[in-house]
């Protein structure tokens, strides 16, 4: 049979089956189970109407149960058991988890996932917000926006292939086809190199350190000198202490990088295999996801920015706010809910990230992430126990963020 015919038949059976189910089940409910006649006609109609929603929900509930709830339970069961030769399995308690926690590769994946988690949602949301604001009032803004949105249409694997070409390295005597190496080989240690590779990064690190340091100061100040009229709970105070310490630490780290970038010896004139440079290669992979997700953040945040009442902005102009103050004190707070939703949505994508790592490095050179680790264990090592255990870990990490995401999305809809 031709595949087209098969498709047609599938569609026919699927759609026809749905129609038949809804028609048949409603007929059964109204004519056989609770007929709207006889002495109990009124009571029967009420009962039929109470049952009807469940009739409509049933297919979805069954499908969700079969494809979502059951796998969760089964994965949890598998994570507590070990396969024996011959197909049987045996309960081993938390052995699989213990084995997993003892593996370096798992902790590497955890560390990398944490890095992804900190950087990708922040960068994608910040860039998306920046683009949304900058393209808001210019004529070719919508053209720029469609260009930036385009990567959304590319699959993660496709994007990974594109970026593999960007990071490509060829032997020294051949032409470099990777654009990053082509650029790198332009640097020869002269004045331009010093300017771009030493002064510029140093300035960027210094600027970043200053911004983060100021943020730490803003977060921490109310502990030392509480603002008038504001009473803060102990939990918020604790959060402030932790946040201030964390931010100061990041500020110190990036300040140290200023010295690094000024003194580090650079291998000028040698092509680099970017994806094999430990630690930094994580960032080269993250760029791919940021490139894709910026478009998503931009579209949502652009709509949110348009929704801000023009009056409040004019009032702020009259109150003397400059464009930066208007952006950070009037616009951003008003779309905070949307920003949180975008942020958490990207966070969930990041926790599940698999394709990019799989297609570009497959977790080699210290780029392992949890999802790829799970795939490795489950389908390459055939270690169902540890694979399922890592799947449970991913689910545990995603769930709270998902709950918060749904909570915020609902709050925004109200």
């Amino acid at each position, binding site marked *: 049979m031709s595949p087209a015919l098969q498709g047609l038949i599938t569609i026919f059976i699927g759609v026809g089956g749905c129609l038949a189910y809804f028609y048949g089940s409603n007929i059964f409910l109204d004519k056989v189970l609770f007929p709207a006649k006889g002495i109990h006609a009124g009571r029967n109609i009420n009962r039929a109407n109470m049952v009807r929603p469940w009739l409509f929900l049933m297919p979805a509930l069954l499908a969700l149960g079969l494809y979502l709830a059951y796998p969760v339970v089964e994965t949890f069961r598998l994570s507590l058991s070990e396969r024996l030769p011959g197909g049987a399995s045996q309960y081993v308690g938390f052995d699989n988890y213990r084995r997993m926690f003892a593996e370096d590769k798992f902790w590497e994946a955890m560390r990398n996932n944490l890095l992804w988690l900190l950087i990708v949602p922040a960068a994608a949301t910040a860039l998306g917000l920046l683009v949304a604001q900058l393209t808001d009032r210019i004529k070719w803004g919508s053209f720029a926006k469609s260009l930036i949105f385009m990567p959304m249409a590319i699959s993660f694997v496709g994007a990974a292939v594109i970026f593999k070409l960007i990071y490509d390295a060829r032997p020294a005597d051949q032409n470099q086809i990777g654009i990053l190496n082509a650029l790198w080989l332009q640097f020869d240690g002269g004045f331009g190199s010093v300017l771009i590779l030493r002064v510029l990064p140093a300035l960027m690190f210094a600027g970043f350190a200053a911004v983060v340091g100021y943020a730490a100061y803003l977060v921490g100040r109310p502990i030392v000198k509480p603002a008038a009229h504001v009473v803060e709970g102990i939990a918020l105070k604790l959060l402030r202490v932790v946040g201030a310490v964390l931010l100061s630490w990041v500020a110190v780290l990036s300040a140290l990088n200023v010295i690094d970038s000024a003194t580090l010896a650079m291998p000028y004139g040698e092509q680099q295999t970017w994806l094999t440079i430990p630690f930094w290669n994580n960032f080269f992979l993250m760029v791919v996801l940021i490139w894709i997700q910026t478009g998503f953040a931009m579209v949502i945040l652009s709509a949110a920015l348009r929704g801000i009442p023009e009056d409040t902005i004019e*009032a702020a102009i009259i*109150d*003397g*706010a400059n464009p930066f103050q208007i952006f950070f004190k009037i616009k951003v*707070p*008003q779309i905070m809910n949307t920003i949180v939703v975008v942020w958490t949505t990207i966070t969930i994508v990041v926790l599940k990230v698999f394709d990019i790592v799989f297609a570009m490095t497959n977790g080699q050179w210290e780029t392992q992430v949890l999802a790829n680790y799970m795939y490795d264990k489950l389908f390459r090592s055939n270690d169902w126990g540890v694979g399922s255990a890592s799947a449970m870990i991913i689910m545990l990490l995603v769930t709270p963020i998902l709950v918060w995401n749904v909570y915020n999305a609902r709050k925004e809809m109200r």
Partner: protein
Amino acid sequence: MADLKLTDVAKVYGGGVEVLKNINLDIKEGELIVFVGPSGCGKSTLLRMIAGLENISGGTLEIGGQVVNDIPPAQRGIAMVFQSYALYPHMTVRDNMSFALKIAKKSAEEIDAAVNKAAKILQLEPYLDRLPKALSGGQRQRVAIGRAIVRDPQVYLFDEPLSNLDAALRVATRIEIAQLKEAMPESTMIYVTHDQVEAMTLASRIVVLANKGIAQVGTPLELYERPENEFVAQFIGSPAMNLLAGEIVGTGAQTTVKLATGGTAISAVPTSTADMGLKVNIGVRPEDMVPCEDCDAIYTGKVDILEALGEVTLLYFEKNGAADPVIGKLPGIHADMRGQTVSLRAVPEKVQIFHNGKSLYYR
């Protein structure tokens, strides 16, 4: 605390659309000026130009003797109250009111003092730590006014501040604004509205805007009793002033006009013999039309529609081909007059004469 001077102010939008031209206006310190006019006459645009939210295409605007055409809004010494309140939804009432002062880097004590003072005047003290969404419409409007007060501006600008409130609240807030003005006699206020009652009750002077320019500037009663032109005559007052076409047949200290509809009107507007035979419109307000029997009636007609409002009764006479019916407004209840033929007269002091749309009184 400053006077305003508008000289030849004009507004032209990008596509060459002219909205306002030749606006000349002197506003003295302490006045409450009301801009009124039909929708789209540019009254809000003019206010926004004074505020600095729209640029000025031509002419000059002076505030306190200083040309401010190119000075940003915050440095013009103005504060604006928006129709939609425009409160910052994420800030408490206190933060809303202190935002401008924080931007201006005032000290915390100074900010506190200003906010508390304004909150006291506006009775907002119990709500200082609430968010705008937890306030009623009237309270929100008071916060918007409070936000203006704390800046201690030279000129207050109000852009239809009451039109988002319901009828009862509108009256109460209108009285509050009048009291506020009384408490700050030296501050200059400019108030845009399309509501005549607001204009008549609040204004020290009203500016009627029409046809891209100013139709008349005057105190509320000047506009009501001596409109400069037919537009103002019909715009101020409700129902609008009756206009009847006719021809001058008697001149002197009093003018006699023979009307096309058959009646004769005598007006206290003086004319000279040169005006004999001039085609004119006479204007009489509905409330000045008094029924009479066997008299020199201005108008005689059959009552077509009758609206008994209790305190007054409105009589709409048969149109007989005219565009608008003649309207009479009688005090008290006269529900039985429908279908009757009634003669109306008016005292000469209440009869205006317009030639080519302009009042002969102002020649």
